[in-house]
């Protein structure tokens, strides 16, 4: 085979001019690749944690799901920050007993929550946005401020209600995220999906969910290939238009391949006896320990709710 001359030229240096150029910041290709890798990493990580012999791992996924649901509900209702702190302490204890690395468990939540929730809630501290009893007065203008159609009170202050409300929401978000993390880190994902059946989710929906879970990873590999190929060919940052066309083309290609894949999967299901209704079996096993766990978590949720009422949301 005769190769054209341009294909026969070989360049040994890193780049023709010998300079390495300035480091460019993370672009959309790298960001996407990073996020795709995160999905795989997270799933492998929880797969490994779920295989350990900890407290939560020993529970049937269904009992865990019921228990966590009630606790999540209690956390959403409780108004007393002290109770929410106590609840968080209990979650940390559960994490310890289930071999969830504590540093990661705490960091993952408390580095992220203040950054997003905290910043978003920041303005709500001030009386200009939400009136309340001033806790710290920052500025005093002496007269009502008029800015266009808006009137602002004479003083800018951080309100007691603002502090309390923000604290409450942050604690709630943190608790909810931690609770969800505990559930998914200690349960094998396919089993968690199967366990959804007890929440009256129809079987067909669960089968679809399970299969989705499976094909996310197949399609993910495809997307990764497309983005790696793009990264390998990327000489500069590329124009906005070019990049968007690449995104559109890869989404379009992905859709075409998904469609072809679904046809093939359908054929392979037919070949194995599928005739419109999937029959499944589960090997779940409710033990005494599971009943106890369900009972305990319902009681704990009630305790949170009732204590909150008893304390009347004061602290």
């Amino acid at each position, binding site marked *: 085979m005769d190769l054209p001359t341009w294909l026969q030229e070989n360049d040994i240096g890193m780049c023709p001019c010998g300079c390495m150029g300035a480091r460019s910041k993370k672009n959309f290709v790298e960001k996407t690749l990073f996020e795709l890798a995160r999905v795989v990493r997270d799933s492998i990580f929880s*797969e490994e944690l779920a295989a350990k012999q900890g407290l939560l791992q020993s529970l049937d996924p269904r009992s865990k799901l019921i228990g966590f649901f009630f606790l999540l509900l209690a956390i959403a209702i409780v108004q007393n920050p002290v109770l929410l702190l106590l609840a968080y302490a209990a979650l940390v204890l559960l994490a310890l007993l289930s071999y969830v690395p504590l540093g990661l468990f705490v960091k993952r939540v408390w580095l992220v929550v203040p950054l997003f929730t905290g910043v978003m809630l920041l303005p709500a501290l001030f009386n200009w946005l939400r009136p309340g009893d001033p806790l710290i007065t920052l500025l005093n203008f002496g007269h009502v401020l008029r800015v266009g159609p808006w009137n602002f009170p004479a003083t800018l202050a951080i309100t007691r209600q603002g502090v309390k409300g923000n604290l409450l929401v942050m604690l709630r978000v943190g608790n909810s995220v931690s609770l969800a993390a505990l559930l998914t880190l200690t349960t094998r994902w396919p089993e968690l*999906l199967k366990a959804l059946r007890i929440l009256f989710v129809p079987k067909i929906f669960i089968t679809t969910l399970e299969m989705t879970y499976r094909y996310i990873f197949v399609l993910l590999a495809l997307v990764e290939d497309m983005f790696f190929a793009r990264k390998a060919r990327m000489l500069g940052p590329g124009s906005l238009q070019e990049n968007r066309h690449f995104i559109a083309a890869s989404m379009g290609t992905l859709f075409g391949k998904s469609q072809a894949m679904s046809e093939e999967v359908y054929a392979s*299901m037919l*070949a194995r*006896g599928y005739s419109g209704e999937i029959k499944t*079996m589960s090997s779940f096993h409710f033990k005494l320990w599971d009943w106890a766990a369900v009972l305990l978590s319902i009681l704990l949720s009630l305790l949170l709710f009732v204590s909150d009422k008893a304390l009347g949301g004061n602290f």
Partner: protein
Amino acid sequence: MEQPIFVLDQASFGYQSDQPLVQELNLLIYPRESVVILGANGSGKSTLLKLISGLLYLSRGRIAAFGTELNEKNLQMEDFNRAFRQKVGFVFQNSDAQLFSATVWDEVAFGPLQLGLNPEDVKLRVEETLALLGIANLATRPPYRLSGGEKKKVAIACVLAVNPEVLLLDEPTNGLDPRTQRWLVELLVSLRQAGKTIITATHDLSIVEEIADRVIIFNEAHQLAADGKPQELLLNRQLLLDVNLIHERSHFHILGQTSHAKHL
């Protein structure tokens, strides 16, 4: 003489009528035969397997399996569908399309469950099949954490789990390392000795001699070019060149001889 399992009579298939993928094919396949279908890419091998397994329906002609015509109407009948699906197992070329369940265990259990085995038997069957193929350690793994070779083993396990009489394999050695290829050939040989009918579509000439007692060759016009013993056909270099299966300078080993390129 024994009744054939599959009878194809003037069978033609194409998505568009002017572009047939299988053209006027006459073919009989008997029980316990081990047939290899050879042909270049796009010659219609996979299509033929899909027709035989009742996944595609003919445009013209007829095809019958186990004495019953394979058409949409018959395959919609629950009893025939179940019996046919149990008897005919299909190992797809793309393992990712075949492995659609969340774990290996679920995957192998799928077939037996659909065909109505009770849960206790399914459990036993799955465990035995996994042990047979030496993949019991993969049971709880999700398919995306399997290597190509492991995926192929699981795909074969889920087909074997329903104990099919006929096994259809589409390019089974594609993308496998030499060790797994060897394993696969040995498995096919034992299945053949156990009395299974095996139909393999491939263009991997190195495995043909060991797994086939009959070879069918398609040309690029989607027609039957040859049907005979592997020894005869594989040594017919001109035939293999004509159907574009090999290149003038390809060489491969067969029957202890090396098939070389003629002098240039």
